[in-house]
């Protein structure tokens, strides 16, 4: 077999895929439940999900109150960081894995086109998450 060139790009995206995989595994299910299903299942009241409640959530009110005076400043950061981790981690994890799904159905010859598109979407989505999340007070 002829000596092939060392792949220096994939390991970086594999690293992001793995880190994202942990983030998604540990954080996503509870977030989906609280953000999408809890109100519909009558687990949380309307006040928590309506416009004002959502703004209070992203401002970090519950966390600030719980963390007390010394760590309270952290409260405002937590929800935003949480969102960025889930969206960025989810995109870099999910799109890397999806790339191999596409390879498997016969698109592995289109690697040179697929890679920039998929990782480009992941990067753009992560930037959008940072900008949007931190645009709130």
């Amino acid at each position, binding site marked *: *077999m002829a*000596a*092939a*060139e*060392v*792949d*220096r790009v*994939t*390991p*970086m995206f*594999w*690293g992001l895929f793995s880190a994202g995989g942990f983030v998604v595994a540990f954080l996503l299910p509870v977030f989906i439940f609280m953000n999408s299903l809890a109100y519909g299942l009558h687990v949380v009241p309307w006040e928590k999900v309506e416009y004002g409640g959502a703004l209070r959530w992203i401002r970090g009110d519950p966390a600030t109150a719980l963390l007390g005076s010394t760590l309270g400043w952290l409260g405002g950061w937590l929800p935003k960081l949480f969102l960025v981790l889930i969206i960025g981690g989810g995109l870099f994890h999910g799109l890397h*894995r999806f790339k*191999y799904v596409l*390879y*498997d159905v*016969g698109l*592995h010859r289109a*690697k040179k086109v697929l890679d920039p598109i998929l990782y480009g979407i992941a990067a753009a989505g992560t930037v959008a998450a940072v900008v949007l999340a931190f645009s709130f007070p």
Partner: protein
Amino acid sequence: MADRGTKMIKLRISRYRPERSGEPFDQEFTIPYRDDMVVLDALNYIKDHIDPTLTYRWSCRMGICGSCGANVDGTPKLTCALYLRDLKKRPVLIEPLANFAVLKDLVVDIEPFMEKLEAAKPYIIRKDERPIERGEYRQTPEELELYRQQSLCINCMLCYSACPVYGHDEKFLGPAASALALRYELDSRDQGSEERLAAVATEHGIWQCTFVGECSVVCPKHVDPAGAIQQLKALAATRLMKAMLLPLAPR
């Protein structure tokens, strides 16, 4: 041939006879069987008593030579270690190992596999070769234990037959060759890590693996090639990170 009251079993065997037909075809055989028969015994019975043209590889009959692999009821198995009594379906379907070109009947072309093994540089690479008078490179039992699992591979190719990635990318380095690369990576006597990792961390190398994990399931020697490839990925990725973060540091 068989006494009355003897149990019979029906097998459907995939045949390919390049000198006669262009396509493989299935042929059924019904043979007497006992509970202590393995699939290889059935193949030998057919060759000895029914059809001497049936072609397949085998040697040791004790799961160590690695030559009698075949897909039995769709799963890659060593035919010498698979009892007919453990198979539920009738007829028992015996096909050549998947993902390899068929040469004749159950015999597949092992040449691509041999090339992959070679590509993984499966030998100890020394930077400072010692003169022979100074004796062997010594190793403690603990150091041996680190790579013992990966060293148990018998090159039976069941893992390649089970690997869907190899199924769509014939250039993929694949399970056994990767496990073998890790076996030398973990060997305390080896100094060729950089060279070997570079050989396997290529586009069609370890990065093609999607961790299906079936290679480790079918491995008769519990080598766990799937785990080995992930360890290689972690090794290669951390080494690359270090090289980028500390470009001047000695590697």
